[in-house]
């Protein structure tokens, strides 16, 4: 018997081509943590347009960057910002106020309810959240209805199915078994709902290493594994490195100027970090080892 398991490892350049114009794209992580940035940058570079972006339950500036780069038609995210650095993403705020993007308004609980409905192939799931609020008004996909057993009011949440889920994790073996350092936030919900899952990891590990702690395997059978050390930069990656605040401030200054009417700085940002570097390794080279290694683990 010499049957061999097929490796699911691809590079970020090839993986990103799986994301096409008009798709629904989810991006895992949580605010300042664990976004598959090597793929997000590549998607901008390849010029993908009209995306529906399902950000993390609380999304960070990766969604803002995609909006600023002109890739986004619609955003699903209960929050887009950078906490104390920026209470709301500059491009997100401006594009929403100007009606340049559509927003699917929900909170985190409703958001996971919608992903779960998709995973279960259900036309809706009910929730108590949203009763008495403006959410069913500003999001007409949410409907108040009477529970068929008791007649009580509930909110019906329709399914939200990403075509592609992008996730950043700590480890994967070549066969699509993925482990996080820590909880993995809400990334399991993305994987379960999405048609295709692409995972970037800090380290590819042998299958034997996965088997040493199988209870830590959070996702299995993911479609593609991309080796991308520092792949969440400028955001943190649990157990590996912290956020690059200086880089995020550089981004925010460029973004704020752009929404104020001067795109010069932002165009330079895009050129320097996204259109210039040929791939993820070149991106890291541009950021530079001194900066990268300054993002300590503890």
């Amino acid at each position, binding site marked *: 018997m010499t049957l061999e398991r097929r490796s699911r490892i691809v590079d970020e350049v090839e993986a990103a081509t799986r994301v096409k114009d008009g798709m629904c794209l989810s991006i895992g992580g949580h605010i300042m943590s664990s976004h598959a940035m090597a793929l997000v940058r590549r998607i901008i570079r390849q010029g993908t347009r009209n995306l529906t972006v399902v950000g993390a339950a609380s999304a960070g500036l990766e969604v803002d960057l995609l909006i600023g780069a002109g890739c986004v038609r619609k955003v699903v995210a*209960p929050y887009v910002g950078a*906490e104390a650095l920026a209470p709301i993403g500059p491009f997100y705020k401006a594009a929403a106020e100007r009606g340049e993007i559509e927003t699917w308004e929900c909170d985190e609980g*409703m958001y996971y309810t919608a992903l779960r409905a998709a995973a279960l192939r259900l036309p809706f799931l009910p929730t108590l*959240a*949203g009763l008495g*609020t403006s*959410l069913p008004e500003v999001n007409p996909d949410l409907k108040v209805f009477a529970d068929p057993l008791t007649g009580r*009011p509930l909110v019906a949440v329709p399914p939200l199915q990403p075509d592609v889920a992008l996730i950043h994790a700590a480890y994967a073996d070549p066969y699509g078994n993925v482990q996080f350092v820590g909880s993995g936030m809400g990334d399991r919900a993305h994987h379960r709902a999405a048609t295709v899952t692409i995972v970037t990891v800090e380290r590819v590990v042998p299958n034997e290493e996965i088997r040493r702690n199988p209870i830590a395997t959070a996702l299995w059978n993911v479609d593609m594994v991309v080796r991308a050390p520092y792949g969440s930069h400028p955001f943190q990656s649990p157990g590996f490195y912290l956020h690059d605040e200086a880089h995020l401030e550089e981004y925010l200054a460029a973004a704020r100027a752009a929404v104020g009417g001067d795109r010069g700085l932002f165009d330079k940002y895009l050129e320097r970090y996204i259109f210039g570097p040929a791939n993820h390794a070149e991106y890291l080279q541009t950021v530079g080892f001194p900066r990268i290694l300054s993002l300590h683990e503890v």
Partner: protein
Amino acid sequence: MDYTTKELIAAFIARDLHDGENIVVGANLPVPRAGVLLAHLHHGPNMTIGLSATQTSLLKEPVLQPFKYNRDFRAARWAESYMLHHETFDSPKLISDVFFVGGIQIDRFGNSNLIGVGRDYRRLRFRGPGAIGTTTMTVYTKRYYLYLNSHDPRVLVERCDFVTAFGWGAGGADARTRLGLPGGGPKYCITPLCVFDFEEEDKRMRLKSVHPGVTVEQVLARTGFKPVVPAKVGETEPPTAEEIAILRQRVDVEGVLRS
């Protein structure tokens, strides 16, 4: 005893939290964070503290490090268990007993708005960050606290342009039970000037106490609606020496609450 308004508020919050409660601590609201940790170290040895997607007890930590961001993974070093974020709302046993909710608008019935300001949702004058988890959390938590960093008539309004967290709706003690919401609703609205509670019958916001040095008139001048004002409004009780000692020596060594 010298103390800042932030320390006063942290102590006020701490006294309202009970031993045994399960409370998640955000990074973005340093004063409520300090209040929760003060309660834990002062009288809450059996509190479960939710921190950076983990649950833990911090009793044995002599000094609690502050963290700037919600998911800073360094705060997971004390983990006893992890919370998968998509399971946060899956059971009252996972959900925080208590929650803190901000708002770009909060109205006189304790409803809050994080969506935006304007008449037309498709053309907001000011787009807010979004509801985060507040819509669902406030459905379930035993009680919650509205918390504001500034006391401003544009924030404390007669009526929110949009509601993201249902407080007491259009008023009435049964406003929540009529909708079948299991949680206890907003208990206090805490600002840099005062503490509001809610009148028992119609659940209008009522001035409960002003912080030392603040007058009722100052509060009314900075509030965009007319709260219920009892004949006698007391002062928010100052922190004790023991509370200040815990705050400064263990919870807030960097002095965020003193800045």
